[in-house]
């Protein structure tokens, strides 16, 4: 896995959370790998999850299958980035 590719995916996921959930740039800049997402961010309800995933798909040019979507990938910022990277960096 290329570190610079991973950085791009992380930047993209951060930008998607900012744009889709309407979070401030400062707030998403503070996200680390262990920052909890689903269940911890009130903005991230199940409808917003659908928008976040679709926007990540569009920006990274990937397809996320419905059976791949589970609670684990949305638990933390790090888990979501890792999942997106596993799809984008192959």
């Amino acid at each position: 896995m290329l570190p610079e590719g991973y950085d791009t995916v992380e930047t993209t996921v951060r930008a998607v959370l900012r744009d889709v959930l309407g979070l401030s740039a400062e707030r998403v800049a503070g996200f680390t790998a262990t920052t909890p997402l689903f269940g911890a961010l009130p903005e991230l309800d199940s409808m917003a999850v659908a928008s976040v995933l679709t926007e990540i798909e569009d920006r990274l040019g990937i397809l996320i299958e419905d059976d791949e979507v589970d609670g684990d990938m949305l638990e933390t910022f790090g888990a979501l980035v890792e999942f997106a990277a596993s799809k984008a960096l192959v």
Partner: protein
Amino acid sequence: MAPRIDHYDWPGGREAMLRFGPDDGPLAVVALPMFEEGNRTRTFVVTLLRALAERGIGSVLPDVPGQGESITPLAGLTLLRMATALEAITDRCFDDGRRTYAVGIRSGALLDGCALHSGRWHLAPQTGADLLRDLHRTWRAASHSGDQTMMMAGGDPVEIAGNLLPSDLLLSMSAATPSDQPGIPRRVVRLASDPAAADRHVDAAPLWRRSEPGNDAALAALLAEDIAGWIAACEA
């Protein structure tokens, strides 16, 4: 000048529309995205059309049958019937000697294929398959399970985010693509974050993905400038 409330007639009834800008010259016929994205972008698009009017270009923002404030039931509607309704606006303009240009936002770009527009300007156009994918994901987010075929199976309307969508309408989406006719100018503008092909990429956030409706006056001004310049070039 404040927008004026007008209406248009189509074979299935009468719908309301907002009218902006001068009563002569080329007219932009604007189609909002369908369903939830339409609610999220309406305020922004009104800002855009006011900015377009300031640049001397008139426009209309019609309620598509079954969308917005329209009381036409979704049952019996397909993309083609919606596009046929919007065609009536262009036909009326022809009677008045005005040419029309389509302005399609997201899935609104799927609704301008019937009218004889002099050109089409699309913002982040979405294919019917992409729209269906979004709807399916929203359907699944409401604790349903199954693939798209299961969602549409049975012939009964499917409730998605408060809309009762007839299966004929969903089926009509699967193969739909934004209209691009040979010899008719088309311009595609996308956001910088969207890697898909476009004539121009602009740096902005996708308002249509936000659950809290937002506005972006700077983007509205920038896009109004783009549309006005493009229509002027088409008319030259």
